[in-house]
């Protein structure tokens, strides 16, 4: 289990290469990549603030719960903070399990919890000013399924 919180970019392809492999019992790997989207076409950058210390603890707790619930062979979470450009990778999650259902469920669980329970806050800076991204009800509701 690895959790990395960093301002530096990460290499999704390199992180995916070999992830979860090596154990005889691994049949399924799911990897997720989140990217800075420019919905309205005027985004110049995104700034991600976080709560050092709590971030690492909160994500480690989620990852441990996922490992236990879905008997994961491995899990990886990388999340960036600081200044990001449109199109840049923000974060990734990877899960390795015996079967595909467990690997998918664990990855979706981690994404749902990262969205609403990891202490990150996004600010979008564009031509028309700066705005904190509001939390969505549907993201909060998504936790209900776990």
């Amino acid at each position, binding site marked *: 289990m690895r959790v990395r919180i960093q301002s530096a970019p990460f290499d999704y392809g390199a992180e995916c290469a070999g992830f979860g492999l090596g154990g005889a019992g691994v049949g399924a790997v799911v990897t997720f990549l*989140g990217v800075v989207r420019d919905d309205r076409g005027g985004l110049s950058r995104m700034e991600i*603030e*976080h*709560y050092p*210390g*709590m971030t690492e*603890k*909160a994500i480690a707790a989620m990852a441990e719960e996922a490992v236990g619930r879905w008997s994961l062979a491995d899990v990886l979470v990388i*999340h960036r903070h600081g200044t990001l450009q449109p199109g840049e990778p*923000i*974060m990734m999650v990877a899960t390795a399990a015996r079967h595909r259902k467990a690997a998918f469920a664990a990855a979706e669980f981690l*994404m749902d919890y*990262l*969205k*609403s*329970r*990891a*202490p*990150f*806050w*996004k*600010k979008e800076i564009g031509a028309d000013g700066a705005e*904190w*991204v*509001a*939390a969505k009800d549907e993201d*909060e509701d998504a936790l209900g399924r776990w």
Partner: protein
Amino acid sequence: MIDVLYFAWVRERIGLPRERLETSAATVADLVAELMAREDRYAAAFADVSALRVALDQELASFAAPLKGVREVAFFPPMTGG
């Protein structure tokens, strides 16, 4: 003495990322009332606590939670990670 941290627009409204306070507040809600009474910028930041979250020693908590033994309180809007 207790460390109080502010994040995102709470930090911006209050105008600082953290401060160290002497308080006799028994609960988070008491601390919020104390802060709001201090200055307008606090009153503005805490005007709608339903839009805020609180963590005690880096664990999410409720506004009714007691502060006894707590070293670090953080106030912030709902999280938007991922």
